[in-house]
C-alpha cells in the first residue's frame, strides 16, 4: 500500500509571534521551524501501518518554500521511504494547498493518506477534509485509534464530552490523527545518514497543472491580542482568600 503522509512545517510552540510591517503575515526572522506536532503522529502512524501490513511505502509530502525540505528530511530520518516537496513562492490558502496535495497523491498513486488533525499555525484544521473531497475519498478526523486491514480502516475518533465514535471506512481514505494515537519514534543514526543523501522529488504548482490557480482567501490585518493586565493577588490567610475570591467572582466579576 502506498501511504502518503502530509507534513507541514510550523513555528515551534514556544515562538513569540511578531507581526510583519504590512500586517499580512508574521515576522519570519528568528523563528525555529519544526514539524507540526500533530503531523509527527501522522508520520508514526504511516510507519506503523506499513510495518503491520509488512508491505508498501511511506511517502511524506510538504508544501512550502525551500526550508520545508528540512522537515521532509526529518521524516525520512524517522523512516519514511520517499519525500516530495511542492515548492511554492506565492501566497497559498488551505484551498490551494489541498488542490496541490490532491495532485501529488494522484501522481504518487497514494492509497491511504495520514495527516495531523490540524496545523498549529493557521489552525484551520481543513486541509484533510478538502483533500478527501477533491479525491472523492472517505475521511475521518481527530482519530485516536486506527487499524488498517485489507481495503478497510477501522478508526476511533473523539467527538465531545468524553464520547468516541468507531468509524469504518473503505480505503483509499484520508485519516487525520490526534495526539495520543501513538508515540512518535526518534530518528535513528542510520536514518539520519540516509536522510542526508535522500533525493527529494520537487514539484512546482505548474507541474501539478495548477500554474494559474489563485488562492480563494486573502489574509490581512494580523494583530496581537490586547495584553491582559495583571489583576489583584489576594491576601490574608488561605481561608479568607478563598472566601474573598468567591465574593469577587460573584459580586465583582459576576461569573458564578
Amino acid at each position: 500500500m502506498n501511504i502518503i503522509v502530509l507534513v507541514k512545517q510550523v513555528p515551534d510552540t514556544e515562538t513569540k509571534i511578531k507581526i510583519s510591517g504590512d500586517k499580512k503575515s508574521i515576522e519570519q526572522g528568528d523563528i525555529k521551524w519544526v514539524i507540526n506536532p500533530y503531523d509527527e503522529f501522522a508520520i508514526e502512524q504511516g510507519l506503523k501501518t506499513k510495518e503491520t501490513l509488512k508491505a508498501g511505502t511511506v511517502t511524506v509530502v510538504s508544501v512550502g518554500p525551500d526550508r520545508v525540505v528540512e522537515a521532509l528530511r526529518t521524516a525520512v530520518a524517522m523512516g519514511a521511504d520517499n519525500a516530495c516537496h511542492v515548492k511554492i513562492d506565492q501566497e497559498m490558502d488551505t484551498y490551494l494547498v489541498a488542490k496541490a496535495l490532491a495532485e501529488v497523491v494522484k501522481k504518487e498513486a497514494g492509497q491511504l493518506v495520514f495527516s495531523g488533525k490540524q496545523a498549529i499555525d493557521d489552525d484551520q484544521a481543513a486541509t484533510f477534509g478538502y483533500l478527501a473531497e477533491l479525491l472523492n475519498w472517505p475521511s475521518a478526523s481527530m482519530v485516536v485509534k486506527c487499524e488498517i486491514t485489507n481495503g478497510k480502516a477501522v478508526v476511533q475518533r473523539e467527538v465531545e464530552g468524553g464520547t468516541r465514535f468507531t468509524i469504518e471506512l473503505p480505503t483509499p481514505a484520508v485519516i487525520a490523527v490526534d495526539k495520543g494515537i501513538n508515540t512518535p519514534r526518534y530518528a535513528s543514526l542510520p536514518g539520519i545518514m540516509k536522510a542526508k543523501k535522500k533525493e527529494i522529488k520537487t514539484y512546482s504548482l505548474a507541474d501539478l497543472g495548477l500554474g494559474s490557480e489563485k488562492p480563494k482567501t486573502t489574509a490581512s490585518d494580523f494583530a496581537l491580542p490586547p495584553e491582559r493586565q495583571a489583576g489583584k493577588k489576594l491576601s490574608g490567610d488561605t481561608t479568607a482568600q478563598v472566601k474573598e475570591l468567591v465574593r469577587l467572582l460573584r459580586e465583582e466579576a459576576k461569573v458564578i
Partner: protein
Amino acid sequence: MSIYLIAEHKEGKLKRVSLEILSECIRQGVEPTCVLAGDGNMDSAAQELGKYGAKKVVVLENAELKNYSNEGLANAFHAYLSKQSPTAIITGASWVGKDMLPRLAAKFQVGLAADCTEFKVSGGISARRPVFAGKCSQSLSFSGNPAIFSVRPNVLALGEPKGSAPQIEKASAEVGQIRAKVTEVLSSGEKKVDLTEADIIISGGRSLKSADNFKILFDCASVMGAAVGASRAAVDAGYAPHDMQVGQTGKTVSPKLYIACGISGAIQHLAGMRTSKVIVAINKDPEAPIFQKADYGIVADLFEVVPLLTEELKKLKAHS
C-alpha cells in the same frame, strides 16, 4: 445578499452556537435562512431558531443521517445550497462544523475560514479568526461565491428571544454515497461538559502530581457545573487524557471563568485560554507567569485552596 446559516442540533436539541451566529447576523441587519439536516425530530430546533429571530428554516431529512457522516451532511447541504446561489454559508465551529465544512467548501471550489471570532455579513463579507492558538489574529476576505466560514462557540452574544414561529420548509436530504460509517458510539461513562463549550473551566498542571489528585478538581467542577482541563505538562505526565488539554497543541477555550490550578503559564498554554473572560490563578510560586494574566490570584498550595473553594461554592449554592 443571501446568507445561509447551517444550524446544528444534537438529537433534535439545537446547539447554542447556532443561535449565537443567528443573533450576530440579526444585529448586523441580516436575516439568514437557517438550514437543519438530520433523520427527523428537528421541529423544536426549528422553533428555537424562530424564537431568536429566524424567519425561515429549511429542514432536510433523510433516515441515513441518523448516524453522523461528514459525507452525508456535506452532500445534503451542497445539493440544497448550490440551488440557492448563497453569498455566504456560516456554521458553528463544533467538531461537526470542523469536519463537514471543508468538504462543502471543496464542493463549491472556494476557500474557507475556520473558527472565526468576528464576522461581517453586511456591506461586504469578511471574517476574523485567531491563528497560532490565539497568539495573534487575522482577517480573511473571500474571492468567489459563497464565502464559507465557521464561528467559534461561546464568543458572540445571544440576542433577545422575542421572535415568533418561523416558516418551515421541509425537503428530502440528498445524502449521496456514505462510505465512512459510524458503527459504534463509545462513552467514557459520566457525561462530561465539553471544554470548548463550557462556561467555567478548572484546569490543573503538573503540580497535581497524579491522575488521582485530579479528583479534587472534578469535585470542585461538579459544584459549579464546570469542565476540567489540564496543561500539556499534566497530560504528558499521564495525569490527564489529551482531550482535556488546553493550549496550542490542545483545545483553545474561552469560558466566562478559567481557574488555573498549579499551572505556571507557559506561552503555549496561555495561547489556549487567554480569551477567557475572567482568569483565576492558584499557584504556590508567586513569580509564576500566570499571575501576569490573571484577574485574581491566590498564592498558596492548590491542595489547600481547591477543597476550600469547593466548600465555599457548596455553601453559596445552598443559599441561592
